[in-house]
């Protein structure tokens, strides 16, 4: 018994010690400024990975739209915290935007009424008709208003600008918005098998990205927004390293708090119930547990963490660019972190996030170097002329490696490096 409990702990310690050595090596070889940046980003990824590990590891939910929740969180935080745009506030824009919100609420109400009309004795056919009408009218009203509004705002002030609120507040809103989107998606898909959730999250992520790229009036679209405000003195105010180190400490504290809260939740009755549902859905359902409701809770919680982590990540890079949200970097990389680290194990997710991110960052110059070498020698020895976009294809090499890692881990080490320890009660 003792050896069984001893071993995993030794393994944890050994792996984290190795990670510490790796970080130290990078500090020495690459310098502090570079390493702190990498650690901040790895920490943000850690928060996002914790969000995923509770969805996948605790509840077996397959979310392939992490990018969407990151983007939604980042965009809402940007809107909350970026300085106000006086042109917008002096134009007719606020009035239009306010009216839009009013119409949005009215449409939501109409849709809700139509959807619940069966409670007031409306037959199924009439209800279907009412719902169809409600959807059609809402769509026409909202899309027409949106066209007018976006044209007006773009003409008068370029875009709406932010609200200039404190950064911490923006991060909270990031979580709230991501949570609301998750509520919608989860409400629709969680009663069905996990494949449907995968398809729907994939779709919502693509749509959020498309929307953010094209909604010039709201988020300045592909013109990007910078500089994003920092919660701590930003590098522009003075000391570069100091600013980054301050940001790092904020991220580290956030990561630690998230971890501790999740650990508590894991060992609470709520966490036990989650695992019971994951391991045997039918039995848990038969015991009267409301399986879908628990799943919805955990799905929302995970997405809230993704939204917050995404906002922290984008604020740090200081430029908000909707084209910068990539499935590879913001969805699949996180999947690799979680399954490699050990799903269902919070320490595993953090380990995976930091380790994989370091490998990811270091692999970029390596891949470019490799490709440059191939191009040079190919030219010298074989007279082979590399295509003009040859170096950009180094990126594709990494796409391949990420895919390969996912399939190999699933097959060879489905438990990950730090397997979940089944808590005994």
């Amino acid at each position, binding site marked *: 018994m003792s050896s069984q409990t001893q071993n995993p702990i030794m393994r944890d310690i050994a792996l984290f010690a190795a990670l510490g050595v790796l970080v130290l090596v990078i500090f020495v070889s690459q310098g502090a400024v570079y390493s702190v940046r990498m650690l901040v980003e790895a920490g943000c990824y850690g928060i996002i990975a914790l969000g995923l590990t509770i969805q996948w590891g605790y509840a*077996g939910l*397959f979310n*392939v739209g992490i990018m969407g929740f990151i983007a939604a969180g980042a965009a809402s935080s940007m809107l909350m915290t970026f300085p106000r745009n006086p042109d917008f506030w002096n134009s007719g824009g606020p009035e239009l935007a306010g009216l839009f919100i009013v119409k949005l609420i009215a449409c939501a109400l109409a849709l809700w009424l139509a959807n619940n009309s069966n409670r007031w004795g409306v037959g199924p056919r009439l209800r*279907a008709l009412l*719902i169809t009408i409600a*959807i059609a009218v809402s*769509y026409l009203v909202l*899309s027409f208003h949106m066209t007018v509004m976006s044209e007006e705002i773009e003409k008068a002030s370029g875009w709406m600008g932010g609200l200039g609120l404190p950064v911490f507040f923006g991060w909270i809103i990031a979580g709230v918005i991501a949570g609301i989107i998750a509520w919608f998606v989860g409400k*629709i*898909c969680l009663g*069905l*098998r*996990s*494949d*449907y959730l*995968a*398809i*729907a999250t*994939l*779709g*919502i992520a*693509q*749509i959020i990205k*498309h*929307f953010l790229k*094209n909604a010039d009036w709201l988020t300045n679209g592909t013109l990007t927004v910078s500089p994003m405000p920092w919660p701590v003195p930003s590098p522009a105010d003075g000391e570069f390293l100091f600013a980054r180190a301050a940001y790092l400490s904020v991220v580290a504290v956030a990561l630690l708090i998230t971890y501790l809260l999740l650990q508590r939740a894991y060992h609470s009755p709520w966490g036990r119930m989650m695992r019971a549902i994951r391991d045997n859905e039918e039995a848990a359902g038969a015991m009267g547990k409301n399986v879908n409701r628990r799943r919805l809770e955990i799905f929302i919680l995970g997405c809230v963490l993704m939204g917050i982590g995404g906002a922290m990540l984008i604020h740090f890079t200081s430029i908000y660019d909707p084209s910068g949200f990539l*499935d*590879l970097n913001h969805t*699949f990389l996180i*999947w690799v972190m979680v*399954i490699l680290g050990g799903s269902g194990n919070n320490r595993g997710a953090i380990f995976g996030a930091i380790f994989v991110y370091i490998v990811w960052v270091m692999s970029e110059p390596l891949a470019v170097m490799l490709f440059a070498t191939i191009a040079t020698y190919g030219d010298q020895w074989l007279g082979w002329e590399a*295509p003009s*976009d040859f170096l*950009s*294809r180094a990126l*594709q*090499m*990494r*796409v*391949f*490696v*990420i*895919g*390969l*890692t*996912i*399939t190999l881990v*699933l*097959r060879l080490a*489905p438990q990950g490096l730090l397997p979940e320890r089944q808590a005994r009660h």
Partner: protein
Amino acid sequence: MNDLVFFLNKGITSGLIIGSIYALGAIGLTLIFGILRFAHFAHGDLMTLGAFVTLILAAALAALGVTLPLPLAFVVMFPAMAITAVLAIGLDKMFYKPLRQAGARPVVLVMASVGVTLMLQGVIRLFAGVRSRDMFVEAPKEIYRIPIPGATRKLVVTEPQILLMLFTIVAVIALHFFLTRARLGKAMRAVSDNPDLARITGINTEHVVWATWIIGGSLACAAGTMLSMDVTLKPDLSFNILLPIFAATIVGGIGQPYGAIAGGFLVGFCETLAVFNWSIVLRPFKDELWFDLPSNMSLVPTEYKLMVPFLILIIVLIYRPTGIFKGRVL
């Protein structure tokens, strides 16, 4: 009259074309979903892979100076379909079968297919880059302009569009006969219906799995090739093409090939008609209308085209998760 021809060109023809492509992709997806019981996320990239196989074969033949009465790409599509089918079986052997045998949960297979799709994406773009390519390696595509009495505008159909429609019709009929007449085809339906009973009955599940990948892979190749022939070969479609095909599959009901065909056309037409500029069709009546006709009156701006399949998907999942043809809800 001119406006009607415009509507035929931009609305109906495009809808039929994109609908056939979605249908061809969705048939494979629905069979895989029904028989192997997981959502195959690598289907979009399997289409792209198939199109590339075709392109390579066509380019090789063109380099040898071969010319045929039909576009080279269309002719070599048939061997390319066979090659893609073999590749699909290979992918299954390497990545899905070991997991199936280990008794992995279906969601793990979904995840493996995500891994496979990334690998395919990586390989394709590593060797071919991300720029679009023209499938007509030997000569530009032929365009037929058919005069319509009473209109100055002509009905425009391209050669690949006609070939695509003919191919889709033939493929659907062939599939129908295979599934209802052939022993293996019936066995596929049996496995999709009740896999445990099929095994007890002595149906060779391995053969059924092969047949599934052969049909799925070859139709994916055809869909990818046709899509690339209609426009250009874009190596970075993957998730953007995957979403409408999944929507078509679920709308049609999982495990229902006929449903997939109907779903494909439904999604294709919705998409085309939603971004269609209705003001052109309404222009002749502009004096009778009670509002000023805007220059662009599409239901959905083109940049949000992807919204259409997604909304269809969401509405079906809320109100009828079994799809219109009463498929399974897994």
